[in-house]
């Protein structure tokens, strides 16, 4: 952004709205938030899997909303209900599939380097929360399968002491976790994860760094570097 942001008078700058706005623009200037260029090494299929995960998640949410609005009788007893139910399940399969390929890619790129640890950690937490979301979905099916899963799970959950407030045999509770609480957490984590990627820029490959830095310095330089080299 070439035009300078509005610089408010001193009195205004004590307002939290001003401070939040200034900080947001400083940390996430529009050209970083919505860039039109990426480094050449990003033109590889392995960089597509984060977005594939988001696309699959969008289908999960859309089909889930339809299932929720129509209800269990519809998704068990009608042809269209079966179809939307299957869309929901298979989108979840693609979501986890793409997430794992994404995770492997980032692992072998060492994509936590250069101040990107929070990107890795938000990703890992999203994975764990998503497993919880999937599990509460399986026990919300309202069929023998969900009863079987719930009764297999309850002993384990009781044994670790969380059965009293996370009760897999309580449909209302599991359904609330599945359709409201955990999806909201996953959405917030994905938003944070992607904003962090935008802020630091895509991590340079190991080889590109080796070419630039003197050989002895490479091991430690990785931790100190920021996204500046991506520009």
């Amino acid at each position: 952004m070439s035009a300078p942001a509005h610089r408010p008078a001193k009195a205004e700058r004590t307002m939290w709205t001003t401070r939040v706005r200034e900080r947001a623009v400083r940390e996430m200037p529009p050209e970083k938030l919505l860039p039109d260029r990426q480094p050449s090494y990003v033109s590889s299929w392995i960089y597509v899997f984060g977005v594939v995960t988001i696309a699959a998640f969008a289908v999960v949410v859309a089909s889930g909303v339809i299932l929720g609005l129509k209800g269990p009788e519809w998704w068990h007893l009608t042809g269209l209900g079966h179809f939307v139910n299957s869309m929901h399940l298979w989108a979840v399969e693609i979501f986890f599939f793409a997430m794992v390929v994404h995770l492997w890619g980032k692992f072998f790129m060492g994509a936590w380097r250069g101040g990107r640890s929070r990107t890795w950690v938000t990703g890992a937490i999203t994975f764990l929360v998503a497993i919880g979301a999937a599990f509460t979905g399986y026990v919300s099916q309202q069929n023998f399968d969900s009863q079987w899963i719930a009764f297999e799970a309850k002993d384990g959950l009781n044994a670790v002491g969380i059965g009293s407030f996370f009760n897999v045999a309580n449909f209302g509770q599991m359904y609330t976790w599945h359709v409201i609480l955990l999806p909201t957490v996953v959405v917030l984590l994905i938003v944070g994860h992607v904003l962090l990627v935008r802020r630091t820029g895509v991590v340079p490959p190991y080889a590109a760094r080796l070419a630039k830095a003197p050989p002895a310095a490479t091991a430690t330089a990785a931790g100190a570097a920021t996204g500046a080299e991506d520009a």
Partner: protein
Amino acid sequence: MTGTTPLGAIFDLNVPAHYLSWHFIQISVPNFVVIVLMIVVFVAALLIPFPKREREP
């Protein structure tokens, strides 16, 4: 519903999955297939060239 379609005959989901056992490792065939597919897709993503844009700098 089993066997009402050719695909249904191959992927019969109305029976328990088969399990592979190797020493202490036990894994169902569907889970094993998914892991193999993920590895295949991962390797393909590294090897298949990414299409170039027209107006490349």
